[in-house]
């Protein structure tokens, strides 16, 4: 064993040293379109509406995000049906969901990445752009008719542009939504509202009045005690509030910059007047003892505990949390009723803040050298972007996992369950068949996205969909050097914004010191940061008109 290791080690040293000499891929644009060597298995007349089927059996390695609720099984119908429809075998490299991103980063860094890298959220591709490890997929849109079609039909141009890098190309194949799908909001004890004769709050100001009324009736409780505070304090609350004040994001969706559409320029989110106003709003809630000051540091379990014991009535929520957490938690209180309310409206008016881009795929550059490259791009296009592929990934196989009603609308087969839609059914769409898998099924038309939503959630979506979409900020891609510099400024800046945010909210710092806070941000290179952003924005605007 050890002797062998030694010989291997010598080889490994050589390999390590050899790697030094490999420089980043030289990009020859003329070369990138000559695909004659890479057409093995590809279809000739592949277009929208074509069922992709490789002309010879091919297989592609894929990084697989293994979900604990439906661990990977090799005998899933998904794999076998995929094989028979497309002649493609996927070779999954299983990675636990808990640490997926770390392993992906390691594999790319070590040059050992599989060809397909799914579950990549927008902006996660950016660190890999400059090394040339990731394929600039925008160069190959002609191989992906369904993707091009959806971008055009759903008018996703501005969103896609935000993914463009300094070279004008984009490197991520994002999931696409026809309609924005917003999930996070607040959940409110509706039985308490009824008891106190209150309406469901529509705006943040309504919410304040509702909380006040609750406090008046139950002086011993903090009516609002929030969760989702770890590791980012006020993760959800700050974020949805920032949306409502017209900012780009805060909390767990911390955004350094927000686009001011009127002035046509970027501003530092944490230094804007709107940000100050939303902190003043939260400070008012805390100082009048309407919002539990522990909201920003407590664990989720603690927050749920307070809700369960009627020590609080309002809490951050998404659709799943209401069904999986709050209702079971409250089950021992027969009167308790809780529901997710439509996102309260703030100064920015009635907007739906959700992004229409979802997580998606990166493709390793080395795929370009494969003789099956074209077939792979066609396959990706079919599975992730065609209506048929999306329906297959979500619903499965007609007659086995779902059936169609007279109007052609799919419904679950009676013996198949998902999210409790067919309670007691012996088989599970995810666990036993491998469909509705987060790696393969996301985005699409609203009918598809909302297929498994409860009636309650569909009503929520109806309200949200009636609201105007948010303005998409213009792209401002950094060069490699800029990104390195900006990233070193970013962490201290963000830390300071978080810290001051909590101090202002909790009343540990007076708003009279707001200007001092701005000066502190300046001393932490806020101005240089914004200068770089503006420069990048203008450069991109001028270059790409």
């Amino acid at each position, binding site marked *: 064993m*050890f002797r062998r*290791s*030694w010989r291997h*080690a010598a080889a*490994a*040293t050589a390999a*390590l040293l050899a*790697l*030094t*000499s*490999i*420089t*980043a891929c030289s990009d020859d644009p003329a070369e990138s379109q000559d695909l004659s060597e890479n057409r093995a298995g590809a279809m000739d007349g592949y277009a929208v509406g074509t069922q992709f089927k490789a002309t010879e059996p091919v297989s592609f390695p894929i990084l697989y995000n293994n979900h604990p609720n439906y661990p990977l099984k090799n005998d899933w119908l998904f794999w076998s049906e995929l094989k028979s429809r497309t002649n493609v075998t996927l070779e999954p490299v299983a990675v636990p969901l808990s640490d997926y991103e770390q392993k992906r*980063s390691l594999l*790319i*860094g*070590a*040059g050992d990445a599989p060809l397909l890298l799914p579950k990549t959220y927008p902006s996660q591709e950016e*660190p*890999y752009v*400059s*090394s*040339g*490890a*990731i394929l600039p997929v925008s160069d190959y849109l002609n191989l992906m008719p369904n993707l091009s079609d959806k971008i055009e039909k759903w008018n996703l141009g501005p969103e896609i542009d935000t993914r463009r890098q300094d070279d004008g190309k984009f490197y991520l194949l994002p999931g696409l939504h026809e309609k924005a799908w917003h999930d996070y909001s607040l959940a409110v004890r509706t039985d308490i509202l009824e008891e106190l004769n209150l309406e469901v709050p529509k705006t943040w100001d309504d919410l304040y009045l509702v909380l006040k009324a609750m406090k008046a009736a139950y002086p011993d409780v903090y009516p609002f005690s929030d969760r989702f*505070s*770890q*590791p980012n*304090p006020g993760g959800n609350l700050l974020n949805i509030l920032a949306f409502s004040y017209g900012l780009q994001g805060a909390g767990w969706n911390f955004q350094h910059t927000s686009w001011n559409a009127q002035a046509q320029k970027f501003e530092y989110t944490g230094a804007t007047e709107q940000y100050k106003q939303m902190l003043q709003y939260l400070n008012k809630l805390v100082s009048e003892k309407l919002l539990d*000051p*522990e909201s*920003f*540091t*407590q*664990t989720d*379990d*603690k927050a749920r505990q307070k809700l369960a014991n009627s020590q609080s009535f309002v809490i951050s929520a998404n659709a799943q949390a209401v069904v999986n957490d709050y209702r079971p938690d409250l089950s021992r209180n027969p009167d308790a009723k809780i529901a997710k309310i439509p996102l309260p409206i703030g100064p920015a008016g009635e907007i739906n803040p959700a992004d229409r881009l979802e997580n998606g795929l990166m493709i390793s550059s080395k795929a370009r050298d494969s003789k099956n490259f074209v077939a792979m791009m066609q396959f990706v296009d079919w599975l992730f972007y065609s209506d048929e592929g999306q329906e297959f990934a979500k619903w499965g196989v007609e007659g086995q996992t779902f059936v169609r009603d007279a109007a052609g609308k799919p419904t679950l087969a009676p013996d198949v369950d998902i999210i409790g839609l067919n309670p007691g059914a012996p088989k599970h769409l995810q666990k036993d068949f491998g469909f509705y898998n987060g790696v393969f099924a996301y985005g699409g038309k609203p009918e598809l996205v909302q297929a498994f939503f409860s009636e309650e959630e569909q009503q929520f979506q109806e309200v949200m969909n009636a609201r105007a979409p948010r303005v998409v900020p213009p792209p401002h891609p950094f060069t*490699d050097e800029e*990104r*390195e510099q900006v*990233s*070193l400024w*970013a*962490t*201290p800046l*963000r*830390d300071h914004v*978080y*810290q001051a*945010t*909590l*101090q202002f909210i*909790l009343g*540990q710092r007076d708003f009279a010191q707001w200007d001092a806070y701005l000066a502190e941000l300046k001393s932490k290179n806020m101005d240089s940061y914004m200068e770089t952003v503006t420069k990048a924005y203008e450069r991109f605007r001028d270059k790409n008109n």
Partner: protein
Amino acid sequence: MSAPTTATSPAPDTTTPAPPVRARSQSWRRALRRDWQLYSLAILPLLFFLIFRYLPMLGNVIAFRRFQPGGSIFGEYWVGLRYVKMFLNDPTFWNVFNNTLILGGLTLLFCFPLPIILALLLNEVRTRRLKQFVQSVSYLPHFLSIVIVAAMVMQLLSMDGTVNQLVKAGDGEAIPFLQRPEWFRTIYVSSEVWQTVGWGTILYLAALTTIDEDLYEAARIDGANRWRQTWHVTLPGIRPTMVTLLILNIGAFMAVGFEKILLLYNPLTYPTADVISTYLFRMGFASSNFSYAAAIGLFEALIGLILVMSANLIARRTVGTSLW
């Protein structure tokens, strides 16, 4: 094997100062001939260190080269001391550096002596079953995941938690402990004590078994009471273990518990709670700047090495025991 020592070995210094190289190689040859069996035992471990420890260290070169994720693992081009200068000029770095020293120092101050005391107390227990029971129980915290420990700490210290109930019972005002920077160090060190002290006794208890019973007998004959026996027999008996652990703890001083701090701190407590590793984590998370991290890592390692070498030197000079 241990028989021939100074008498037969070096000596050449006095006779001729001329060929020190030959003399050294000669004595090496002699040492090899005499102790080749011992050296042979070291071959596999040395191979291990060479392959699995020293070879990957080549990667640290990226502290001085620009690394791009997905590019060469040894970086793209030389940047000299750019990353070193970067962190030396970063005020946040010095803040977290100080925090690291203070938390590391406090941890050392409490977590080093307490296991010794507990081990000595356990050693005085005369019912064997009781001793075993206490021992086994005191190891339990070591097995709890840090996530659970952190959750328990937060539960205890919340506004309506046990600690604040006591505070309120004593006519005090409830304190939001986890939001107060001045409390963080106390909280961290006490939870660390709770978690590590029991497990830390194992080595001392193992060392205590090696102490010669006759020494106690002799001390008793000299009229020493239990206290003096402990002082003159027990403590000197476990001194090599104590010194080894002290030196190692001093060396590991900079590596304060990353995961626990990550779970317990929040932006309000950054002024006291943020340490090098957590700062690097936040830096890395946002920017995947491996070069910068490597530069700080080397700096940290250098400090650790200097600390351990000085501690070793001092230990050798003062108590005569040392790592090498």
